[in-house]
């Protein structure tokens, strides 16, 4: 369920002022960050390993090389090969719905493991764009993408959507479960707020819009949910915390075996 951001609205109405300030923050002790993905497509098997860094540093994160990364299922293991600094891939290994996969990452004497089950896919039926109320800051009409699908009533389903405008990825995490939509024909609006007024994020006519629909393992949905609400730094949550993860061994990040489908349209 989405809630309206009344705090943001209130701040707008009160004409509150904002300023970047220096703060004393707790010291950073580097932690491993593992982002591991296995999909139903060849080339979709990818693991990125990096580390946390101090808040004051820049946003260039160098990968961690020298790790041994394997994904196994039903007794057969696939080893991923490094393709860049901290990037490990397998060009042909695909996952299949219903199977459970185990990830093992060994790096610098530490071992991190996780398990993820790829759910049965729900068909991505339609992608379209509709106008919202109002305009973007650049004057263009506010438009949103809608993803249409028929949610199966017999099982719980968890989704994530990734939106690209002219191949530029929207950073908002779009997730949905079926608690309020179970068994229904769903038209999910991919709502986002262009909080940094970057014109490239707006959906405008003539642009190419791509949306990926990911059917998620419930534990991975919980990862994205808690990441979005607890670790984004927005200051609204009274108790920010690291997200719930399926990785054991003390690393940040997740391992997701998901089913991916995508659609691309030209915005009229």
């Amino acid at each position, binding site marked *: 369920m*989405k809630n309206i951001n009344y705090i943001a609205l209130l701040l707008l109405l009160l004409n509150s002022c904002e300023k*970047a300030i220096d703060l004393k923050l707790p010291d*950073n*002790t580097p932690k491993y960050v593992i982002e591991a993905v296995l999909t139903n497509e060849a080339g979709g098997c990818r693991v990125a390993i990096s580390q946390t860094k101090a808040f004051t540093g820049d946003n260039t994160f160098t990968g961690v090389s020298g790790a041994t990364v394997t994904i196994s299922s039903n007794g057969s293991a696939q080893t991923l090969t490094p393709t860049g600094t901290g990037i490990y891939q397998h060009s042909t290994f695909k996952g299949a719905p219903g199977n459970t996969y185990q990830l093992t990452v060994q790096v610098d004497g530490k071992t991190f493991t996780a398990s993820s089950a790829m759910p049965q896919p729900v068909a991505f039926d339609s992608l379209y764009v509709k106008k919202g109320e109002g305009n973007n800051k650049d004057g263009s009409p506010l438009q949103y993408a809608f993803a249409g699908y028929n949610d199966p009533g017999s099982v719980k389903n968890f989704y994530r959507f990734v939106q690209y405008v002219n191949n530029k990825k929207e950073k908002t995490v779009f997730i949905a479960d079926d608690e309020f939509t179970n068994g229904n024909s769903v038209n999910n*609006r991919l709502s986002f707020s262009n909080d*940094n007024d970057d014109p490239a994020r707006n959906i405008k006519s003539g642009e190419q819009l791509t949306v990926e629909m990911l059917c998620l393992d419930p534990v991975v949905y919980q990862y994205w949910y808690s990441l979005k609400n*607890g670790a*984004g730094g927005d200051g609204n949550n009274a108790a920010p915390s690291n997200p719930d993860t399926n990785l054991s061994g003390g690393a940040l990040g997740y391992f997701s075996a998901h089913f991916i489908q995508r659609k691309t349209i030209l915005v009229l």
Partner: protein
Amino acid sequence: MKKRHLPAFLLLLAGQAALAQNKYTLSGTITNKSNGETLIGATIRSGATGTATNAYGFYSLTLTKGSHELNVSAVGQKPKTITIDLAADQKLDIALEDNTQELQTVIISAPSRGGRDLRGTQMGVEKLSIKEIKDIPVLLGERDVVKTLQLLPGIQSAGEGSGGFYVRGGAVDQNLLLLDEATVYNASHLLGFFSTFNSDAIKNVSLYKGDMPARYGGRLSSVMDVQMNDGNNQGTHVSGGVGLIAARLNVEGPIQKDKSSFLISARRTYADVFLKLSKDTDVNRSQLYFYDLNAKANYVLGSKDRIYLSGYFGKDVLAADKVNGINWGNTTGTLRWNHIFNNQLFSNTSLIYSNYNYTISLRQDVNDYTIYSRIRDWNLKEDMQWFPGDAHRVNFGFNGVYHSIKPGQITASGNAGISSQELPNRFSLDQAAYAGDNWKVSDRFSLSYGLRLSAFSILKEDSRKTYLNAEPRLGAAYQLDAQSALKAAYSRNAQNLHLISNSSSGSPVDKWVASTQLIRPELADQVSLGYYRDLSEHKYELTLETYYKKLQNQIDYRNGANIFTNQPIETQLLYGRGRAYGLELLLKKKTGRLTGWLSYTLSKTQRQIDGINQDDWYNARQDRTHDISLVGIYKLSERWVLSANFVYYTGDAVTFPAGKYQIDGSTYYNYTSRNASRMPAYHRLDLGATKQLKQTKKFSSELSFSLYNAYGNPNAYRIYFRDNKTDPNRTEAVRTTLFTFVPAISYNFKF
């Protein structure tokens, strides 16, 4: 169970009373002469023997036979001396005149009256009458009892933009807010910039921050008991005010002179009118307003009976446009019957209704949906006060509240695929019986002891359950000399309604949940010790209190909790314990041209919940090491009153990131210990001035000026972390400030 013991207990006391030979009882009501309002806490004494009126202005005083010089006084009233010759039980109603003398109108508490009672055992209580808060500068010129109480020790603001407050380290939901006995579940207007208590309609406020009398229960930290005016029974009067963002109107008058009266008081903000003028479409389509209405009527049925009917209705609307928004509001109603059985036994029977609900409306394309939630109470309450002689004052009674909670109802239309659904309502019965006695053991030593038994039953669910709690209340006071006293108290409180919130500033959609099989009653044990001293012949008053509080069954969301689920909330919660301790100092100057006070609190508040912060103790958000308020009111001339207050407090304990990392190309933050960092310290100075305009017998008016945050300190409302807009390769901490230099002017009138 309780009641079986009660008669024996009463007999014991009655026996003591009967021993008092040659004593007679004087009883009656003390009122304000000009408007007929009953006076709460007015004192009447003969030498060392004295008493104070109860919440309905009733007193009962047992004295020896013979002649007595009675001194009667109350805050803001001229003291009166009455000589009587007591030869039989006697009824004596007393009316006090307003104290309109120059220099006296701004006195916070006049000497030897209205000040802290050195003899009584009650400690940890702050009382304010509306007259006292009149000249203290406030945000946007709107007087507000809740904001003023926050200038007193141990009562801490939950921050700008929050209507809540913390009492001695307790959470916002651990305060019981009562308006004419009805529970107010959300006392915030405009997300907390104003409280639901319209000062035009209010007579008196008492805030108990420890050692609550046994007649109160249900919350761990405090009771804020707000009494509405009864309405002027002498003549019809209209008063009102126009400020920058709100207008108020109050009408009151007799229905039958001396016998009955009514009061209607209304407020509406009109800031939304200005929003429409904005060119920004995000702003001019927005709605932002509240209104509220207080109404009360009372009728004297005879010398022994009086009936009161009072109600409150308020609503807030905050919307981005016509269809996307949220509204919330409280409704309360109280029907009361005062009955005087005899000159020593006073009874009040109340039937009380309270309701809080909110609706969230959202539209996306052609899809509409609304989310509705509600908590509603019916409460039957009986309070008896018995004055069996000058040594005892006994309270006993019972009440039963039927709570029904609608956790969430979703109504949807359109093609979004959202199903309309409703979680089953939850019902519970909250019963309590209590008895307590204030016993004046000797001239110097007083004791109060009481017991509240509460039984909370979960109804109409598969798993019915009743939680029984015994809540003892104990207090002792020892008068060291004529100027100073020592007091000590212990109390236990149980709480069965819990507000589950994870937003940093509190929100109208925070959930009220009742105790269940898994959510056990919260318990608090508090011990406190206090020293009280009058200085310089009652010019100054010093109060020093310390407390230690142990809390059990505290509740918090687990990390990563899903707060928008309609599933049973228990799965998203964790349970633990808490502790809070502190030292509070209050130095008041009560007389002279300059009056005011200095308040200082040194405190610590922590929680320990398995599953949070590696199971270690951590600071609660409201852990405030230092909290200082300085309030000064200066009567410059007959026309002008100047005022100022200064506030400083340690920033909230919050969780700031220890580092950052990237997921899917976006920056996220790494958190280590819970609440290990601090918001910047908060401080501001407010200035105020009130000018009395031309005054006639029939009409008076005044102009009030105020400047909130006079030196424009950019206090942090919240701090968030983001990638820099122009250089996305850097991250920055951004502080949001709500108010710097807020000037206001308002005009108030009365005729």
